[in-house]
Structure formats: C-alpha cells, structure tokens
C-alpha cells in the first residue's frame, strides 16, 4: 500500500497512533500511547489530542476500547493499513452495492457450537 493510499485510510497522527498500538501488541492506556508518541517530539502532543484520536479510531472500528479501572485501554483491532482499507471499503460500499459473505462478527460461543455441530455431522 502506497503512502498516498495509506494517507487516505489514516491521517498522519492516526498512523502514528496505530503504529504505537501495533508495536505494543497489547492494550495500552492513553498515557502510554502519549508517552511513546512524545518520546522524540520537540513539540509534545496534548493528552486530550491523543485521547480524541484513539476515541475516533475506536469509533471507526480500527482500534478496540475497553474499560480498565477508571479509564480505558486501547488495542489495535485490525492488523495493518491494508486491513483498515478493506474495512473501510466494506463500510463504504457494503451498504450500497456490495454483497459480502460475512458482514457480521458474532462472538456468541453457543452459535459457534452450533456451527461446529453442523461441520462435524456425518
């Protein structure tokens, strides 16, 4: 994926934030992301700026947010800019003129058990 296409999927700061999340491989609080981003910056980013970016990424489904104590921690939901591009494609086009095999991810274990029974049946 070229730079221009990556730019169309993620903004510059969003790309930096996602790089931190991908690099960590685990859920991080806003403060940890902020510290990592500010490590080599001459003009440090504000806490609220990073929190807003993380929140926006979570709203778009690119990052996953869950409560931890009194705050939230964030983790990358998708593995690469290419995956984000596909997600964005489905979000953009799945609604209008695209029929896709799996639109919905359901974490219901009982449903998976029913699917397993169907797979295993003779």
């Amino acid at each position: 994926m070229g730079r221009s296409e990556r730019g169309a999927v993620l903004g510059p700061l969003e790309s930096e934030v996602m790089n931190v999340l991908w690099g960590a491989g685990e859920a991080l609080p806003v403060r940890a992301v902020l510290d990592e981003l500010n490590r080599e910056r001459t003009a440090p980013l504000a806490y609220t700026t990073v929190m807003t970016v993380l929140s926006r990424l979570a709203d778009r489904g690119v990052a996953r947010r869950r409560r931890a104590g009194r705050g939230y921690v964030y983790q990358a939901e998708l593995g690469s800019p290419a995956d984000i591009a596909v997600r964005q494609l489905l979000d953009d086009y799945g609604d209008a003129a695209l029929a896709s095999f799996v639109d919905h991810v359901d974490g219901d274990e009982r449903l998976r058990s029913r699917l397993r029974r169907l797979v295993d049946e003779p």
Partner: protein
Amino acid sequence: MTRDRPLLVLLAAAAASYPALVLGWCVAALLGTVPAARELWLAGHPGALAAALLVLMAAVAVGNAARVLVRGLWQTWRFHRWVARRRVPPSGRAHAALAGWDAVAPVRLVGTRQPLAATAGLWRPYVVISSGLVAELGGAELRAVLAHEEAHARRRDPLRLLLGRALAAHLWFLPLAAEMCGRARRGYELAADRHAADRCGRAAVAGALLRLVSAPMSTASTAAFADPGFLRARVSQLESGQPPRAGALPRGRTALTMSGALAFVLTVSGAWMVMLLTCPGMAGL
C-alpha cells in the same frame, strides 16, 4: 424478482406515490403562475399549505433517491478501481480452488491479508475474494463461499440492494421502507446460503462461517448491517434447511409509517383541493 417480496413492496409503494408527487409539482406550478392559486397561498388556505408540504415531500423524496443512486454508482466505480489496483493472479491454493470451479460469474483475486468475499458490479456482477480468505479457508469452505457469492451474482443482488436503498430513501416519510430494505438484504444472504448449501453441502457453509467469525482478522460489521441476530438466522437455516420466518414488523416504525402515510394522504387531498379551486373545470372530470 422471484420471491423478492420486500423489494416488490418497495417498488409498489414508490410507484403508488408517483402520481401524487406529480400532482404536487403541478400544484407548485399553479401556485407560481395562476393568480387564483397564488391568492389561496397568500390567504393561508389549508389546501395551499398542504400542497406546499407535498411539494417539499416530493423534493426530498426525489433528492434522497438521486443521492443514494449517485452515491451507489460512485462507490461501485471506486470499488472497481480498488479491485483493479489490487488484483493478483491466482497462485497456489487459490489457483487450485479456482481451476476446478465451474464459475457462473467471473472471480477476481485481490492481494490483501483481510479475509474478504464479496460480489460487486451492478449489471455484470463479479465475485471478489482476497488472498487472506484463501489462506483462512479449506478447499470445501472456499468453494462454499464462492457458491454463496455466485448466487448473489446470478441474481444481481448488488443491483437489487442499490435499488432497494434508493426506493427506501425515496419513501423517507414511511420508516417501514428502510425495514423492507433490510429484510430484502437479509433475504438475499439467506438465499445465497441455501444455494451454497445445495451446491457444496451445509457442512462446508457452516465451516466457512465458523472459520470467518472465529478468525482474528475477520471482517467486522459494516455500519448498516450490524444485526446481531442475523448470523443466528443463517445458522438456524443451515440446521433446519428452511428459511427462518420473518419477525413481526417493529411497532414503533409501523406507527410512524402510518402517521407518515396519513400525512401524505392529507397533503395530497390539500393539493387536489387547490387544483379544484383554481381549475373549476376539473371538478367535472
């Protein structure tokens, strides 16, 4: 459009609304050009106000439908470009799977790790699968996904989806229209699953669903189709072999739709009143 009842309902409702919308435009022309009609408007006659409301509803309806159609065509074109940019020649497992596949619609492979299977294209639909999907699924499961998408392509479901959305946007004052559009979409998915199960066996379809919902990189919900019960309906259909019964219409939307229909009838009556008062000769028609 065999057994596509939701889309037929939408088509019938939109067709039924058109004479009234044309009436609205006629009355708008009268209000703009005929002094007697203008006097009714200036006097605040309820019929003139109702006619103005009808004109407004017609303008929003046509504007909404045009917006959805243009957006759909634009998105389709952009998706074609996206596929063209990322298209890769089938190799390894993808080649083996596609070589033995009696394709009804063209199948295009795109190079991306995200599992993706979709049907795109309005008049000549084609199936798109990603290298991530090929890596995720076994041969039988991949064929089940191809059969599912083939059913979409054969019925031109992307075109139906776009048409349904445009009709629902046109009928914006009837909230059940959006519900009909959603039912149509769910119906297409269930029909495609039945086709895939007939062609490849239900174990293969179930296996593909299981792998994709369990995959860590699986495509998550699209904003407009995050229906938590729908996967359950697909599994139930695979188990029973019968399409699940459509649930009852939501009460809130039904009530709003009845209110919208009543408002529509009232505005049409007002428009007729203006027409009869300004063109007395029409009373004898």
